[in-house]
């Protein structure tokens, strides 16, 4: 009995209290943009400005990834001429920016969100549908 209690206590210390989902913003088309509206569940956890800054940076990064610039055009033409075999050895501009985004999210988690008991999940792991923010329970439980 006592063992069950302590294991459950340990679990609760790292337990997920809630998850907040930031949905996509389709007002400008199918470009990957997320809504910057501040969810009410995060009011006590993080500063509104900080949160909006993170989402805005992510939106800018995704816009940069999907930009139809000269680089993506050149990649497209080259790929077409080589029967798309060039993609087997080359990383596209989009994939490079996706890596940049992953690094940015990691950095934000380490510096800002983890100390406040939050965790951002990279949207690519959710099919670019939502940004999942996990709210962890307060670690003040100790017996």
């Amino acid at each position, binding site marked *: 009995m006592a*063992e069950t209690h302590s294991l459950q206590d340990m679990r609760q210390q790292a337990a997920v209290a809630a998850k907040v989902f930031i949905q996509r913003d389709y007002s400008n088309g199918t470009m990957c943009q997320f809504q910057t509206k501040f969810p009410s569940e995060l009011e006590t956890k993080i500063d509104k400005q900080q949160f909006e800054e993170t989402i805005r940076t992510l939106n800018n990064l995704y816009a940069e990834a999907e930009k139809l610039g000269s680089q993506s*055009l050149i990649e497209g033409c080259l790929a077409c001429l080589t029967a798309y075999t060039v993609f087997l050895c080359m990383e596209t501009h989009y994939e490079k920016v996706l890596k940049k985004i992953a690094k940015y999210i990691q950095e934000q988690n380490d510096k800002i969100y983890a100390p406040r008991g939050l965790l951002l999940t990279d949207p690519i792991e959710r099919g670019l549908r939502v940004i999942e923010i996990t709210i962890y329970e307060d670690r003040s439980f100790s017996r």
Partner: protein
Amino acid sequence: MKNCEYQQIDPRALSVSPLSAQNPAEKKVQRPRRKWEAFPGKNRFFCDGRLILARQNGVLPLTLGLIVVTSGLFFAFCPFLVEHLTVCIPVIGGVLFLFVVASLLRTSFTDPGILPRATADEAADIERQITSGSSTYRPPPRTKEILINQQVVKLKYCFTCKMFRPPRTSHCSLCDNCVRFDHHCPWVGNCVGKRNYRYFYSFIISLSFLTSFIFACVITHITLSQAKKGIVQAVQESPAVVELVICFFSIWSILGLSGFHTYLVASNLTTNEDIKGSWSGKRGAEESGNPYTYSNIITNCCATLCGPMPPLIDRRGFLPPDEAVPAAAASEMELPPFTPKSDANMCTQSTKDVLERMLHSSDFHGLCPSGNPKTSPLVQEVSSSAPATAEPSLSSGCSRQLARQAVVDPCPLLPPVAFSKSNRRDSLHSINPAFRLASPSPTLSRRALVLGDGPDIGFIPQH
């Protein structure tokens, strides 16, 4: 009387099932499973998840066969043309042939832009937003209206994937996935979607060129041989007439298809939208143009053919270890790669059966009456989320729900603290696969919990 019977059975032997005893040891030797092995859609994977194909690969072998046979016949007749015309002919033919086959294989084996299904938490969040205030569980078919470039677009809810489909997404019934959809092509044996549309387009364009080229060569061949022998004899002698017939019949459909898709690319439409007439002027004077078009043919072409190809599903990533545990039952049978998915469904089914049996048996034995309302929402929630989500997320989602219910809503007949704790343990153990082998009688289950608590503790942290 029934209680006496159950007392004779050793609860420890039942609660510690062979499966659970093996599991800790098995986990150590079990190789880490990749995500494609637990993929819920109807797809086949090759080369350890690098290649993806629809389950029904349709007429892909026929397509390949036709192309290879036609090109083979062409190369067989080449020597005649080489000596009369130029050596470039087989070279051009060869290049076109390689291009066609490469594009076809690329189209067939590339992920078309499959959207991963919603996680249990995401689905629950969406459900909450929709049914807030409503008492019925299944409201009428759900749609959400959003504004895209100042135009109203309706997003439909997908009951299989448990999410609102993003714009331009459709659920393919053949592949059982939500895809950034163009159409499902049986000729290539796969869905054609955002990620492989450019390969499909280059396939049909190059095939048009190849077919036209072969057709022209065959005509030339017959013309040249007719000049010497007369047309009837030329046709009779030369088997090139077979080639002529094949090319003649296929060229119209292929050219037609290429023309159609060129129009779609230039106006930034998908086949799905065009066939359904989503953006045609059928709504009268209302502005119902395509909200995705850039109103410039070149920009539209660039966007479709050179745009990004987001990899929305991760085929080759590794499953986290706790998700791999329930599938250990499937893996020990050593089935071919794509069948563990159906075993995961079976596991979900059997969990549902256990819970339903528990519900019926608690009715029968007439235990704490307020226990019943607690278990019935459990069964409902399990049955709703069971078909689509993988079992581990189901069990973790459900156990959390149960824990909350048990704590919040204790039985009024007994001291709240004592009962809620044992009820929570009950619920947690009911999801435990080891419990599957125990008798469904709650009387036995309590006994099993008391005596068998030790070995089962190992499972608790994973929920």
